């Protein structure tokens, strides 16, 4: 980001777009694994063992954080476009920081085994 792009709303746009693209890339694999459960129980078990590897666990953590970010930043856009703007600077820029903190907190909960 250079010059005029240095504002939290632009960062929110980039995070929302990139996390959305990452989720689009993930979903076909997710459905593939779900399909295995219907067709071949042994293959699903093999896949579930594979998902216990540290690198895959890290990928899951990234996914949890990105999914949370995408959801929260999407809610911010809905509020911006539907709720009244309290003042001229009503971009809800602070919400971007809050969304990042909540997403990281959810990622921490995932790592901690509270949700997994």
């Amino acid at each position: 980001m250079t010059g005029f792009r240095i504002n939290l709303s632009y960062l929110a746009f980039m995070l929302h777009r990139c996390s959305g693209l990452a989720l689009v890339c993930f979903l076909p694999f997710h459905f593939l694994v779900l399909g295995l459960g219907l067709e071949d129980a042994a293959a699903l078990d093999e896949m579930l063992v594979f998902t216990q590897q540290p690198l895959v666990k890290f990928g899951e953590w990234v996914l949890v954080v990105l999914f949370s970010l995408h959801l929260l930043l999407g809610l911010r856009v809905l509020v911006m476009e539907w709720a009244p703007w309290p003042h001229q600077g009503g971009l809800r820029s602070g919400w971007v920081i809050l969304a990042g903190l909540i997403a990281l907190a959810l990622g921490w909960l995932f790592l901690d085994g509270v949700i997994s």
Partner: protein
Amino acid sequence: MPHLTVRIWRGADEGEYQSFSVPMRENQTVLDVVSEVQRSQDQSLSYRFACRVGVCGSCAMMVNGKPRWTCRTHIRSLKSGVVTIAPLRNMPRIKDLVTDMSGFIDKWGKAGNVFESERDRRDAPVAVDPSSPRRKAADAAIECINCGVCHAACDVVSWNDSYLGPAALNRAWSLVNDERHSRKKETMAAAMGDGGCGNCHSQGNCMAACPIGLSPTRSIAGLKKMSLMSLLGGSDV
């Protein structure tokens, strides 16, 4: 006297930066520097300005990568010994710092931005309630002087040729909220059509760059809401 290095774009779409050395003064705007270069070092340098006091908006340029009014940008505030000045982004370049703004102005027309009234001088003026929500919405957007800074700051404009841009849509928002405008439906149809408000990604660059603190993002959000309401049959435009 310390000197400032100024890199100025020379040429049209094809060209290169040329460096000049200008004495650094106590009170000096970017426009002062460009004028000094043109008057004392290279008279062939082309640039636009008129009022020099932040009223007309014609001296807008990219200063260190940011669209700004050069008359209202003090060299001191840039906190840099090297200043890079280029013509406004998202507009064809004519020569040096001068851009062709006709495409930008055409988009104003495409957004249905011609005010029309059904009344003439024999009719009583429309009663305007300054405290009504509609009037407040129009007032918040109405001070735009069409300088093109927000248009230059918008990435969606650079990605999508048909996008009308923040200035044109901001004007459309002020018109659809104006009690006196008789062609609100046509303005709304243009603002929500191809290249209209639905293309905005709420990046907020226009708001961050506007020299007078207007909020085209807010106006476009209002248009989006109004366009959805009109599709659902709930808009009174």
